[in-house]
């Protein structure tokens, strides 16, 4: 197929599918239903390190996890979740909450939407890790 046809076809195809998915409401990130869901999401990534304590954000869009190996965070990846330890994390406050910068090429930045009171609770122990 000539590139003069292929390139527009691929471009329109990607943009069209993206628009359609968004209009169908498929861009909404998943929410963690409760602490148990957050715990399961953590164990899905780190099955050998069960959480000792889970702190779910009020909007249920993230969870702070304390484990025998250290602290970590669970957050949505689209309709799913992932998790990382906070080892080497740099925590900065933003108007909407916190930004966690990790020395991890596969998860360089996590933006958490937290209210002011929550931000203080989440940031306090984490800033000690930074």
């Amino acid at each position, binding site marked *: 197929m000539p590139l003069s046809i292929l390139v527009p076809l691929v471009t329109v*195809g990607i943009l069209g599918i993206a628009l359609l998915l968004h209009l169908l409401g498929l861009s909404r990130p998943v929410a963690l239903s409760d602490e148990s869901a957050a715990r399961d999401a953590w164990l899905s990534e780190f099955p050998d390190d069960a959480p000792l304590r889970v702190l779910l954000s009020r909007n249920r869009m993230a969870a702070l996890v304390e484990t025998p190996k250290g602290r970590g965070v669970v957050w949505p990846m689209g309709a799913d979740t992932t998790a990382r330890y906070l080892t080497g994390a740099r925590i900065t406050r933003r108007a909407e909450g916190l930004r966690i910068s990790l020395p991890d090429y*596969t998860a360089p930045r996590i933006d958490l939407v937290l209210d002011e009171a929550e931000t203080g609770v989440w940031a306090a122990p984490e800033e000690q890790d930074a």
Partner: protein
Amino acid sequence: MSDQITFPDVVNWAVPFFIAAILIELLWIVLKGRGGRYETRDAVTSLILGAGSVASGVLLGFIAYGFFMALWAITPLDLGTSWWVIALCFVLDDLRYYWVHRFGHRIRWVWASHVNHHSSQHYNLTTALRQTWTGTFTFMMVVRAPLILLGFHPALVLFCGGLNLIYQFWIHTEAIGRMPRWFEAVMNTPSHHRVHHGRNPRYLDANYAGVFIIWDKMFGTFVPELDHEKPDYGLVHNLGTFNPIRVVFHEWVGILRDVIQPGLTWRERLMYCVAPPGWSHDASRDTSADIKRKHLAKHPSDRGSPGFTAPE
């Protein structure tokens, strides 16, 4: 010897079909409320990776093709392009695909290229298009060398490879349960390939087939999809980014960081490149064998069941 044989670039010609099939699958899922999941950023990442894969083929394809033509120049054999030669080439190229794919999961250098195909936590037709940009750098084109030396023209071999890729598109779906028993016995199917994309310990390192599942049955890597254990799609450690550049290159970056860390022997540096994914010099990470062993320690009753039959 025939040097000027041409075959259509079937993958590019299949692009309209890919788009139409994705729209049909999406419509099916939305209308029926079952048969898979879609998410915008995940799908867009897959589609961008697909487009980038085609672009990398345009930019870097000359390297593999040049290598094949050099082999073609030295081989005294020319099988021509009769229908049976095309059919035989398709079957043998599928055997080639099986081994390249198996290497892709067992050798980290090759996994670095293939990993992005497994990086989605979804399993739908867009996942099929989440293809590598860096395949040229794995040097796996050498596995095709015997085909060329046996007298299959490079253009024919690449044509069969394109057909193989197109076949594999439709099996990336949850909308199809199981095909008729005879078909499941011989061909790679959505059910077999869902297993391949599963990160469940049971399903790791299974079902490498492209078109014919018989290769997995012959070489002992076949695991059936179990009704009581739905595949959990994605990587053992799922990515925390949808950035296509990071998705494509993350394992290469991981290899580089591991290889240059101070205090390693040269053997350890080499092993970070060629050992199975998850290998580490201090055993701080898990390979698929470690993951299976740990699973069996927690669930000893699974020992001997599909996916846990290999000797430890």
